[in-house]
């Protein structure tokens, strides 16, 4: 009876997906720009301690990492549970540090060699003995700018 009665069934129009690739590309470029590839696979347990007065490391290309901690569960059968040093992708000993320092310095431009930060990623359960030894080796290899890698927290507690 009404003039505006629907005449027959109309199918709903499909959603226009023409802009979908644009959106996806936008996201893609965002992640491509912000991404940093995982360079090393960790072979040691590595939970860094927390601190309140942390500062950010500015240039990632000028940071070299030294991992210290006890081997991960899967490797404990072969390597035991004593803390170890990991440089790049392998377990190394103290004697390898001077060579490691040299290699890392060679990879950078000559003008930037003194600006390398040596980031010590040490597990919080590690004892200071091995850390001090590593620091001594770094000193002797003239790698003086170091960073104790820590997570940011608001407050530190008594033990």
């Amino acid at each position, binding site marked *: 009876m009404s003039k505006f009665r629907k005449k027959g069934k109309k199918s709903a129009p499909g959603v226009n*997906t023409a802009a979908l690739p644009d959106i996806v590309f936008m996201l893609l470029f965002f992640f491509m720009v912000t991404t940093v590839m995982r360079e090393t696979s960790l072979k040691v347990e590595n939970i860094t301690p927390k601190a309140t007065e942390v500062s950010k490391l500015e240039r990632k290309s000028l940071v070299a990492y030294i991992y210290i901690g006890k081997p991960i569960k899967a490797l404990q059968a072969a390597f035991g549970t004593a803390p170890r040093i990991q440089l790049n992708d392998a377990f190394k000993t103290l004697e390898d540090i001077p060579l490691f320092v040299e290699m890392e310095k060679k990879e950078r431009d000559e003008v930037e060699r003194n600006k390398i930060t040596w980031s010590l990623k040490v597990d919080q359960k590690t004892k200071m003995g091995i850390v001090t030894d590593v620091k001594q080796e770094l000193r002797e290899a003239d790698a003086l700018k170091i960073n104790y890698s820590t997570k940011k927290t608001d407050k530190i507690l008594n033990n």
Partner: protein
Amino acid sequence: MAKREISEINAGSMADIAFLLLIFFLVTTTMDTDTGLIRKLPPVLDEVEPPPPIKERNIFEVLVNANDQLLAEGEYIQVTELRAKVKDFIKSDPSNMDMPEFKETDIPGLGLVAVSKQIISLQNDNGTSYEMYIKVQNELVAAYNELRNEFAQQKFQKSYNELVQQSDASDANKEKMDAVKKFYPQRITEAEPKRVGGSN
């Protein structure tokens, strides 16, 4: 001859390809930036030259043993008490003979001021846990930062942190930052560790 119509390229699967790449980058990405406490190690001395003697009153001694216990100036304290003690020491007090001496120093932007000759000496055992070591280091840095903040606020009506953030933008702020830094210079020395704790 009839013109042949050029058929359009089907771009329907472009989104799929883009999605594939997107997911790849999503998985491989690590957004975390490395943060930490930045330190400078002292260079190795070539000759064994005896360091100039430092008066006992200018040194604040912090010892950490293998059981993660803390001794500050001969007093057994908790980590959370350390910050206040260090702050008092760095600030110093001219009327107290046990506190550090002052030295008249000419600092650009501040003029001739009395800077305390404080030095903090940190010594740890080989058996100290890294967690404890970082806690102590953190408290020492925090003491300096708080003092610098207070001083900058009082002198320039801006906290030290703000000055650091704005130091790239203007030279005036950089000069102020350097002045505050010179007034409270961060002097933390680390003695060679001793193996007294037994465990290693």
